[in-house]
């Protein structure tokens, strides 16, 4: 009887614990989602409602006027295309370079490994503003200022250290025994990489692609300074033009354009989501 009471009380405690945990998770999720929800809500409100000073989550009257305004502005569409181009190319190049480098750094222990990893961490210390002028001068001598390629090059260099650091951590997690087993079965190094390691690294590659794309997609300062021609402008730079002096802004179009700006990241995450499924390694090595 006492045992059943004890079990019942434990089960109750577990339920309460679960409830509290889910409550906390839900609160945290709402905290994270609220700015996005508010932005979407604002983008569908009439200008009068935005300025009414009465906060409401659901617009009194739904309007698409701000989206219409945004899509009528040719430059914004152009800037979306530019940002997509820069983001995709950056993500591809970053992963192409970082993946083999991460594998080499984590699998082949040489004297330079520590130096390389130390340098990767050190490179993260410098703020963009500090390197902007020398970077600009170098790019200008290469005739790469005011080009999307120059911007891609900067993003690639900027993103590689973090992606490399992240990927080599993932590679380290893959048991070496898997490679050894494949080698015993007669697989070449290339086969081991592409048939054994790569599938296991898909979540990491997904994360790397997402990181590289989003950091390029959202980046403002390099794009502002390096690109001068209006036709080359990227989305974050265009969005900044919806704000004016002394805290003024065109809030409706800004919310609509900002929502549009988040869509590619959401879509990319949705596509790559399945790659993030964990547990691929569970049971891969016995014992």
């Amino acid at each position, binding site marked *: 009887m006492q045992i059943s009471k004890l079990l019942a009380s434990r089960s109750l405690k577990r339920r309460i614990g679960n409830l509290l945990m889910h409550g906390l998770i839900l609160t945290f999720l709402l905290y994270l989602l609220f700015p996005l929800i508010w932005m979407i809500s604002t983008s569908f409100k009439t200008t009068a409602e935005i*300025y009414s000073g009465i906060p409401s989550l659901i617009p009194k009257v739904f309007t698409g006027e701000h989206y219409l305004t945004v899509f009528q502005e040719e430059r914004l569409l152009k800037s979306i295309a530019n940002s997509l181009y820069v983001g995709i190319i950056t993500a591809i190049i970053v992963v192409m*370079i970082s993946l083999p480098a991460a594998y080499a750094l984590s699998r082949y222990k040489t004297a330079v490994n520590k130096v390389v990893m130390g340098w990767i961490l050190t490179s993260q210390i410098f703020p963009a503003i500090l390197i902007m002028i020398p970077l600009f001068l170098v790019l200008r001598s290469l005739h790469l200022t005011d080009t999307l390629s120059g911007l891609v090059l900067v993003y690639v260099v900027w993103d590689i250290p973090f992606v490399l650091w992240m990927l080599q951590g993932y590679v380290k997690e893959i048991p070496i025994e898997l490679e050894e087993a494949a080698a015993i079965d007669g697989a070449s190094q*290339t086969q081991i990489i592409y048939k054994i390691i790569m599938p296991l690294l898909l979540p990491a590659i997904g994360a790397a692609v997402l990181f590289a794309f989003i950091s390029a997609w959202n980046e403002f*300062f390099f794009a502002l*300074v390096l690109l001068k021609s209006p036709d080359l402008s990227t989305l974050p730079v265009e969005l*900044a033009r919806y704000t004016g002096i*002394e805290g*003024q802004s065109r809030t409706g179009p800004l919310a609509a354009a900002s929502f549009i700006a988040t869509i590619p990241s959401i879509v990319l995450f949705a596509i790559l989501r399945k790659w993030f499924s964990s547990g691929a390694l569970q049971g891969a090595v016995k014992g």
Partner: protein
Amino acid sequence: MQRLISWILYYKGFIIAGLLAVLIISVYIAGEMAIRLESDEIQTGPLRFLSLAWQEEAVAVVQEITQDWNQAHPEQQVELIQGTWNAVHDYLITGFETGDIPDIFHYESAVIVDFALRGYLADLAPYISDEMRDDILDVNWASVTRPTGAVMGIPFLAESSIILYNLDLINEAGVIAPTNEDPWTWDDLHIAAKKLTKDRDGDGVIDQWGTAMGLRNSANILMNQSIAFGGSFFYYDEQGDIEVRVSKPEKELIGNLARMLFVDKTMSPSGVGKSGAEMIPGFLAGNYAMVVGIGSWARQQVVENAAEGFNWAVMPPLKAVTQNMGVNTQTLSIPRSCKRTAIAMEFIQFLLSSENTTRLAASDWMLPTRQSSLEDPRLQADSTGWKVVTANAQFLSTGPWVGLPGYIEWKSRVANPIFQEFFSQRISLDEAAERIESESNSVLARYQVRGLKW
């Protein structure tokens, strides 16, 4: 050797992938460089004009004027670059340092002082036509002219501080609004604010404030308003050295605001952490009967966003000792590194002709710097407050901080944070005054050591 070959054979997959990556990147960049080199050769060299107009209407006017120029001057085209107020400083600083700077750029007089002191700007004085020189008000020229006579930018719009008021609420409370001929004093404002502060729904909480003011970055407005009290925060001694003092006139101004905020409780405390623009929704919602110390541009926000039937108007500046106020102008400048200063200046004169200045002022809802534009009937409409705003031009005055090296740093690093602390009631007025004086003079001393002189 055999070891190397076997190593290469073992890692051939890696090596091929790596070489492929390098090849792709090299071809990509080389292709881009070739295109650039080619385009550099065929570049006919349009002048690059960085505009900070951002409102739809203002952007359209700038575009139209630039197109008109391009049609009239096929031999010297102008490329319009749309800048952004939020990041223009970084953009220009890197541009000056690297030499890749637009030929003409839009900014404001308080900031171009620092650019001028660093030798970045061309002297435009020799290129200014007599017509333009005579038509732009002296007070506006004073904001951009060095004691040597060198002109660092052409002022075309001036910021003028106004008071917006809700006509219906004022009428309902039986308050008689001031006119240009019969302006209010600060005491009049206090009396009216008391009448207009109400708990409309009887729940014990005030829901209609007599006044509101965006105080987040209050230094600018306090500087400009202090002139009406006979103050200025900055004082020159007999040797010509500048000193910051928060003396009786400055304290009187700040004390008036503090009285409404903390004693009378007729000014909404929500303004302490907000900018002027952020006060507009509350004004349109009827939460504030008057918005004090806001830029004349705010009228545009009201016109565009007010619900139908919302009645509003603009008050003339409050009278302290005088109604004078400091001025900050928006300017067009040319970098010293520009190789085509004369033609760039020709474009500026075209852009800022009397007609175009009127159009620019009307689209940006700001005070034009030209006398002829101030008199233009398009800027005299009563319903949108233009009549009061244009009359403000007579009260514009040049503060002693104009041309002061380090003024921008002083404002952002000393004055704004201390005023913020004061209005949040974390320090007293005397403490604020003491800290402003001690911290300011150390910041300004650094600039004096550098020997920078306007």
